[in-house]
Each structure stands twice: as C-alpha cells, then as structure tokens.
C-alpha cells in the first residue's frame, strides 16, 4: 500500500481524504495556498507544503507546483479530491507520467465523460438510458412532428449552438410545435447566428438521481445504490439523501445492474457517479462524474463502506474486498451542505468563526474543517461543512436532522444557510419526499420573499 499520499485539495474534502489515509496507516501531505495556512487539513496532515498565493489558478490549480510538492515530499500517489483538478484528464496523465499513482479512473475515461457529446454517445453505446430525441438537426416542421410523435410530448427544442436557456422552447402538444420551432429558431439565430435546432423529450418534473459506482483494476464493478439530489438551487445541490424516497428495491436493482454492466464494459476502475433525471419510472442519463462526490457520505452511512478508502485501495491495484451481494442498505441518510452565505442574496459571506459547536451524538456525522477561531477565507467555495445524519428509517433521520441543525452553532462574522435548512426540512413536501428538481427554487423564492419582508418590517 502507498506510504504517503499528496492531497491536492483543500477544505472538508482534504480533511475527509486525510482521515481515510490515517485509518489506512498512510502518511499525508497537505498542500495549501497562503490563504489556507491555518486550515484544519494543514494542521492535521503529517506534512504540509505551501504551493502558492490565494488565487486557485496559482495554487490548487497549479500543476507544476503540485507535482513538485509531491516529488519533494516523496509521495507515492496523488488524490485530487473533487473540484479543482479532479476531472482534468491532462493532470491525471501528468501525475502518472511523473511516476505517481493517480487516485482516480483512467485519464481516457475522465476525458470521455468530460465531453458532453462523447459522454452521451458512450452512455448510449453502453446501454445506459438517455433522453430520447432527434439524431441531430431538425430539418423542418414535418420532421419535428415526426420525431415528437415518436418520442412523445412534451418535447424540448434546443439550439444546436445553444447554452444558457437561449433558443429553448417547450411544446406540450402538436399544436404548440410549429410556434415553438419558429420562436426557437428566431432566438437561436439572434443569439448564436445559427438557427439550427434539435429535439429532446421534455421532462417537466424529474428528480435528480445518481448511482454510485466502484470498480477495480481486475474488472470487478459494483453499485452502491442511489442518491437523490433533486434539491438544487441554480444547479447547486443543497440537500442529498439516500435512499431516494422515489425508488423501490426493484427499480434500484434494475438501474444498478444497468450501470454495473455498462461500467464493466467500459473497464472503469475507480469511484464514479452516473447522474440521471428520473421521471415516471424512467431514467435518463445526464452525465458521469469521474471522482468522489460531495454527497458521498450518505452512501457511506447506509452501506457502512468507506468510499474514499476503497478508492485508494483500488488505485493501488487491490481488488474490491466485497461483491454486489455483500452490500446491504441500512436505514436512511440525509446530508445538508452548510454554506457561508447570505440568507437572502445567497452571496458568499465568509468571515471568522468565533464560536463553534458541532452537533454530536447517535447517528450524527460532521465533515467540516471548521474550528473555533478559524477564518473562512473569501477565496474559495462557500461550502464550509457537511452535516450528515443517519436514522433507522427516513422519519427517524428527519427528526435527528432537525435536532442536529438546532444544535449546530457557527457564530462569528460569517453567516450560514443553517436557517434555510431548518425551514426546508420542516416543509411538508420535503417531509413527504414529494419534490423534484424544480421544487427548491420555488421554495427558496418564497422563503427569501418572506425573509426580506420580515426584515423590512423589523427595520420599519
């Protein structure tokens, strides 16, 4: 096994990786920018190297600095964590070229899944269900009608050159199709100087459900069930849970088997997550993440498997120590992402933590690099903690989560979204598990309005 690993990341995920290493008897090297000299991962690591100034580009994204630090500290392997360089195929290649082990999948798989079009083609070829649509450009109205009838209404017309919602139109039935196509083309022409359109099935109330995959270098692949990450705001996940309130064991086993078969065919050999939209009992591939996810702890809580440990083991060439039938799902787990942000504007609100009290007790896990006296730097992501709770069932889990949020104190010159989480988990729809990817935006809009109103009243 590796003797020493360089952790090419910061914050709670660097601490998470450090913990897995220490439990495996592996020494850790923390790298950090000058802004992170006091960070918990730096304090706890066996060694620490300052690699650059606060700007990520010159520190955590600085490939020569990372490789030099790894060489100088005598590391055997580099763990990229998530974000930063974790899905940079070129970095992965260079890590290997310089004689270190890359703790992640083959660079070719990172590259493949990093390109939306290649990823979808690959998914299709591997038998992973995708959103049905036109095999390319829509030629004319007749063609549009033909494809729409084939895939079923509602349909979504999208600009081939598009992005940011421009040139996107929904047609709920045949009557709406002509106008949608015309308006879409006009918008696309205006925005991109390219009127070409393609068509996909439109999902109006999907959930975001993702399947956790783990493969080794001997060709074994298992799935560790799903996570429901439908609670998103501006494409940022806010709360994740496992299992999904919307899946039963049969549906889980079915999509899991599809994912395992596909990954075996691909020869995928690390942690990975296949993200789907899920609506009316059907899964539709969105993308694949070729790294550990922020929300991996909910899977750990219900399976008892340390995913980061397994990721390190398989990177070292060890075969999986368990098979699919050894994996049991016990109870329910929910994760709240705690961000240092303004409760109304959601703008980052970093600052100094003067009083810190993390919740404890049965079924409560905190993955956070915070401590009393720590100054959250303004240079990086606003996520400062993950509160993960486990219960025998979803109801116990919810009650425990409420208790833990009520207990959590992060006081100082920063502000956090703990109050939003408290409101959110008290919402009837959330309690019922009755939500889709659009639910949180609406909830937040109402919450912010209410908050702004009461602040205005208080000020009046």
């Amino acid at each position, binding site marked *: 096994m590796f003797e020493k690993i360089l952790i090419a990341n910061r914050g709670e995920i660097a601490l998470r990786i450090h913990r897995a290493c220490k439990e495996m008897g592996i020494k850790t090297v923390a790298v950090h920018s*000058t802004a992170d000299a*006091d960070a918990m991962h730096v304090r*706890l690591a*066996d*060694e*620490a190297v*300052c690699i650059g100034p606060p700007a990520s580009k010159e520190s955590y994204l600085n490939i020569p600095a990372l490789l*030099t630090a790894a060489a*100088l500290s005598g590391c055997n392997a580099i763990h990229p964590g998530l974000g930063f360089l974790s899905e940079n195929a070129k970095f992965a290649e260079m890590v290997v070229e310089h004689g270190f082990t890359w703790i992640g999948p083959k660079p070719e798989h990172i590259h493949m899944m990093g390109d939306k079009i290649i990823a979808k083609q690959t998914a299709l070829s591997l038998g992973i269900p995708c959103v049905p649509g036109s095999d390319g450009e829509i030629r004319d109205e007749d063609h549009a009608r033909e494809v729409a009838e084939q895939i079923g209404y509602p349909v979504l017309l999208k600009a081939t050159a598009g992005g940011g919602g421009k040139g996107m139109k929904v047609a709920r039935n045949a009557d709406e199709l002509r106008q949608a196509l015309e308006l879409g083309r006009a918008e696309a022409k205006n925005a991109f100087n390219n009127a070409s359109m393609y068509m996909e099935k439109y999902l109006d109330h999907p959930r975001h459900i993702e399947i956790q995959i783990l493969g080794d270098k001997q060709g074994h692949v298992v799935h560790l069930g799903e996570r429901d990450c439908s609670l998103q705001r501006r494409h940022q996940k806010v709360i994740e849970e496992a299992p999904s309130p919307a899946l039963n064991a049969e549906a889980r086993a079915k999509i899991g088997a599809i994912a395992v078969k596909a990954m075996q065919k691909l020869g995928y050999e690390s942690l990975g997550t296949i993200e789907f939209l899920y609506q009316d009992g059907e899964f539709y591939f969105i993308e694949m993440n070729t790294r550990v996810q922020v929300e991996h702890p909910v899977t750990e809580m219900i399976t008892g498997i340390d995913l980061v440990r397994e990721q390190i083991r398989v990177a070292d060439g060890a075969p999986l120590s368990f098979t699919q039938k050894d994996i049991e799902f016990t109870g329910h787990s929910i994760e709240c992402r705690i961000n240092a942000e303004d409760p109304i504007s959601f703008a980052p609100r970093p600052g100094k933590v003067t009083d810190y009290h993390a919740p404890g007790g049965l079924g409560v896990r905190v993955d956070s690099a915070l401590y009393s006296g720590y100054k959250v730097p303004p240079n990086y992501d606003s996520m400062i903690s993950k509160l993960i709770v486990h219960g025998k069932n979803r109801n116990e889990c919810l009650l425990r989560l409420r208790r833990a949020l009520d207990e959590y104190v992060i006081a100082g010159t920063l502000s956090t979204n703990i109050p939003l989480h408290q409101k959110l988990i008290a919402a009837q729809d959330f309690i019922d598990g009755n939500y889709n990817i659009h639910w949180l935006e609406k909830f937040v809009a109402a919450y912010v309005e209410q908050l702004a109103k009461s602040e205005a009243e208080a000020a009046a």
Partner: protein
Amino acid sequence: MPATKFDEELIHRLAKVLQDTGLSEIEIENEGTRVRVARQMQISAMAPMPMVGGPAVMPQPANTAAPATAVANAADHPGCVKSPMVGTAYAAAEPGKPPFIKVGDKVNKGQTLLIIEAMKVMNPIPAPNAGTVKEIVFKDAAAVEFGEPLVVIE
C-alpha cells in the same frame, strides 16, 4: 523561619535569558538552592491554535530550509526575497561552481540570487532591487515552499 534569601539580580538575568532564548521555563538548583523561572507562552486569542493533544497534530512544513525563528525574522524584513514557487533551491549554477551570492555582496537589480528547480526547469531568481546581501536563508539543494524567505537584501 530564617528570611529566605534570593538573588533578585539572578532572576532578572534568568528572565532576560528566558526572553531572549524564547524558553518558557528555567530551573536552577545549586547547593540546596533551587531557582526556577517560567514564562507563559503566548496563547493570545487565536493565533496558530496550540494543537496539543494528538501526536500528528502539529503541522510540519514538509520542507523547512532554515530554523523557524531565523526564517520568521527574515520574513518580516522589508528586503526579504521570498520564493515564488515550490521547488529545490540551488546557490550556484552547477555543483562545484561558486555561489551566485554571499553575505556582504553588493547586488544589482535583476542579478540572479539563486536558482529554483521545479519540474526539471531551472528558474533564476533575480534581485528585486539593488542592495547588499544581508542574509542568505535558504540552504543549497534543499526544498523551498511558496512564500518561503530566501535572501535578505538591504
């Protein structure tokens, strides 16, 4: 009870030694006389948290080129040249060749002070200003971190 004598001068001297050396405690015993002085180290507010407790707790910079106190003093000096990258510092262009600079040398702005090797690339580190080399903090062929003091020029 006989009046206990004590050497006030001695304690003042010990205190000064304590101060100067950065020690936290001195104890002297001599022919039945024992004197011990101690000084509480700065716990002030929330500077680097004294992570007593676990063994693996103290952050250990992987590559420290010089004793911490000297480095700290050098770092505070306005004429301190700090490392712009992680790498290995070399005092001379090649092993066996004379070093680029020695203490007391006058240097011109832009003159190479040392070389830092990173990723097999030799990066000459120039003097930011003209002046006299007051202190050379780095060790030849040792690793340096980003921001680590290298040379002090006055």
